[in-house]
């Protein structure tokens, strides 16, 4: 979003396209107006999560305040030293890339009224596809990255096709089919890695060739972040500025109205699954060809990709099922995950606490009437009993 605005600002100076800028600011203003309540709810849920995290720390004998100050280091904010650490911030950005993308999978599904939790399996498939193209095919420099990325996205979408077919034709609930496909991928990919794509080490894929790697920006962040942001913007325009996107959201909001309006519901559902699969496949690729983990490989334990799809659900929930909101929510989650290691290093607070906090945030946001309820509660407390 930010880069998008900057780019537009630059073109305005050079070409003088006033109208575009005016229109863009109109969109932003319109969003800010509708943004207040979701933002307040997300922040409140974050507060609840941090509160429960603090309670857990207190119960097990840690100081929550120093703990959270340590966690802020994950965002690059070194409060004690009063400094900003760029490397850690870039690291947080690197963490956020796959989360942004898997959040799209869930968010687009929710917009179409589909509870698509298949991102996990699609991430594995995308990762192994990228590792195969990147490590076993010899292609020229620029094209290799493109082909590997595109193939990973394609494989992710193919993995999403079966739940889509079952949903559209046989009426199988997508939660059941996508859970099953996640676990099928969990046992499928290790075999592919060990017996087909292994390199020098038996338990890993061959290292991705230099031609298929995204250029490193700093820390473990690579240029793949631009692809991810572009994907978010594209999905945003697709959903809110095209007819197919409007129909998709209509199907999610009110299926009956959509049916009477002559919307092809099956096609809308199919589109949501395919967008989700493409995004999840890209997320998988971003962990193999877009991040120097374990020397640009994918381990058979799936350690570098495990849980990304599930975390994406949390990110999407906090980002209110919006691709742009997802970017900020992903950064929040990523910073927390990155900061967890400082908590462990500085004060011996196990880093997994952060995952538990994220779970609490999701639980809090599952309640649709969170904010009205709080207001009512405050009023009740404020009012004197008659």
């Amino acid at each position, binding site marked *: 979003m930010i880069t998008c605005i900057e780019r537009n600002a630059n073109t305005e100076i050079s070409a003088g396209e006033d109208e575009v800028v005016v229109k863009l600011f109109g969109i932003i203003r319109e969003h800010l107006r509708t943004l207040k309540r979701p933002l307040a709810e997300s922040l409140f849920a974050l507060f609840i999560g941090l509160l429960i995290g603090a309670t*857990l720390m207190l119960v*097990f004998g840690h100081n929550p305040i120093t703990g959270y100050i340590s966690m802020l280091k994950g965002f690059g904010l070194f409060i004690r030293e009063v400094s900003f650490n760029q490397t850690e911030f870039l690291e947080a950005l690197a963490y956020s890339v796959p989360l942004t993308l898997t959040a799209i999978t869930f968010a687009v599904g929710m917009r179409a009224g589909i*509870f698509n*939790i298949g991102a996990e399996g699609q991430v594995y498939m995308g990762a192994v596809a990228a590792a195969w193209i990147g490590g076993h095919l010899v292609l020229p420099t620029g094209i290799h990255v493109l082909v590997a990325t595109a193939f990973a996205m394609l494989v992710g979408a193919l993995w999403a*096709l*079966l739940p889509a*077919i*079952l949903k*559209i*034709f*046989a*009426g*199988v*609930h997508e*939660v*059941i*089919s996508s*859970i*099953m*496909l*996640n*676990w*099928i991928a*969990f*046992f*499928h990919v*290790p*075999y*592919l890695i*060990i*017996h*087909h794509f292994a390199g020098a080490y038996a338990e890993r894929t061959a290292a991705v060739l230099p031609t298929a790697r995204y250029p490193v920006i700093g820390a473990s962040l690579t240029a793949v972040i631009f692809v991810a942001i572009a994907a978010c913007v594209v999905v945003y325009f697709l959903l809110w500025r095209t007819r197919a996107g409007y129909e998709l959201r209509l199907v999610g909001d009110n299926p009956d109205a959509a049916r009477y309006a002559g919307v*092809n519901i*099956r*096609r809308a559902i*199919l589109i949501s699954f395919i967008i989700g699969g493409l995004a999840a496949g890209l997320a998988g690729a971003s962990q193999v060809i877009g991040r120097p983990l374990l020397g640009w490989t994918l381990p058979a334990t799936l350690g570098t990709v495990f*849980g990304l799809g*599930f975390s994406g*659900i*949390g990110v999407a*929930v906090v980002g209110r099922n919006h691709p742009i909101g997802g970017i900020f929510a992903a950064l929040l989650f990523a910073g927390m995950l990155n900061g967890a290691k400082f908590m462990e290093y500085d004060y011996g607070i*196990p880093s*997994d*606490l*952060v*995952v*538990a*906090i*994220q*779970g*609490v*945030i*999701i*639980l809090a*946001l*599952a*309640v*649709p*009437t969170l904010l009205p*309820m709080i207001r009512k509660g405050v009023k009740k407390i404020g009012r004197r009993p008659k």
Partner: protein
Amino acid sequence: MILEGITFALAIFALGLSLMALLDTSGTKTPKVPAWLHGEKIRGRIIGIVAIVAFVLYLMWAHDLLRVELFEYTARALTENWTSLILAASLLATPLTLAAVGECLSERAGLFNIGLEGIFFLSVVIGVRGAENQVVGLGAGAGAGAVIGALVALAVAEKLGRFAKLVAAFVGGLAGGLIGYFIMSIVIAGLGGGAAGLLVGALTGALIGFIFSVMAVYLRANQLVLGMGINIFATGMLAFLLMTIWGFPGIHSVRPVLHIPKLLGYLTPVFFVAVIVAIVAHIILHKTLFGLRIRAAGEKPEAVDVAGVRIDRMRVLVCTAGAALAGLGGAFFSLGWFGEIVKEMAVGMGFIALAVVVVAGLEPLLALVVAFVFGFVRVLADWVATSAGISSILPGAFYLMHMVPFIVTLLVVTIFIGRRPFPKALGKPYIRE
């Protein structure tokens, strides 16, 4: 070669069919698929089955299993030493049955809890803690008793005034707490720490189920999001508690004194408990008025409400009890089966339990059978991995057998979706008009 050729032809044919079917969704009025594919529901089911078959063929091909040796080894596996395999299957069948029966009841009442995995994770750790530390066990018993006592007292004193309610809750809580403490101390003294641990695991599950159902029923939270939230929370908590309680990452061995005894090396008392639970659940569900009300609460809550039954309370009660069963299953992993806690021990098991529920079509007795079959497949997979001949010639068999429960679930759902539908009000909060 021939085998591979035939499968490839079949796969391409299936892919073509699926593609043709997809073209049909593109919105044009004139159908592009052959006429014989146009019968209402049958067609959808056929397309689904064909797609799954094509998918399975792909998996077999990718796992290098399209070979003659596969049949040879299947035949060999079928003539293996069955008794030990079946006995071993009872180990996995135990937690699966417990969790699946609980989930069957809860789904019948209209609550869809996909947080079974999370319940497993948490009760794995807290159950062991309750077994090792008597104070934790007694505290859990007293706390649970107090909550139950207070709630029962509140329900009884519903018509009374505010002050009377408060007194009732206090007295009920006190009495319940004492009873819980007493029961727990009897369990610890009579059956040992292991049994107390199982009980604490069940209480952990009940607590999660209680929180889940209260949020879903009274706050109308999205049940699927809640379930995923529980799973993620528990994933973090499992590792966090392992590290903070025992100070060692990823693994903790339980003292052998606390292990649940095993007959014949595999059969545990908990397995028989699971069998009894499944039978009792079947009787409650199909032979009692309460069971009728549970089923009706999932199908047509308005009718139950008109009949004067409190839907909200019933859903909370059933879901809490169901989650308690899952918690018992979770504690069984560490105390009854492995005798240790490993971080990855129960990964995926909660989802297999969900698969059991789906395949069983929400029938507790069928859930017992399906859990046993899935447990057997898992044991067979381990047998395949350890028998030298198979693992060197067909290394993919191990991985494919791990997928069998999930593939079977996909097929069963697709085939039977019309015949055994889920309750109509499943996953929807009941809003009184």
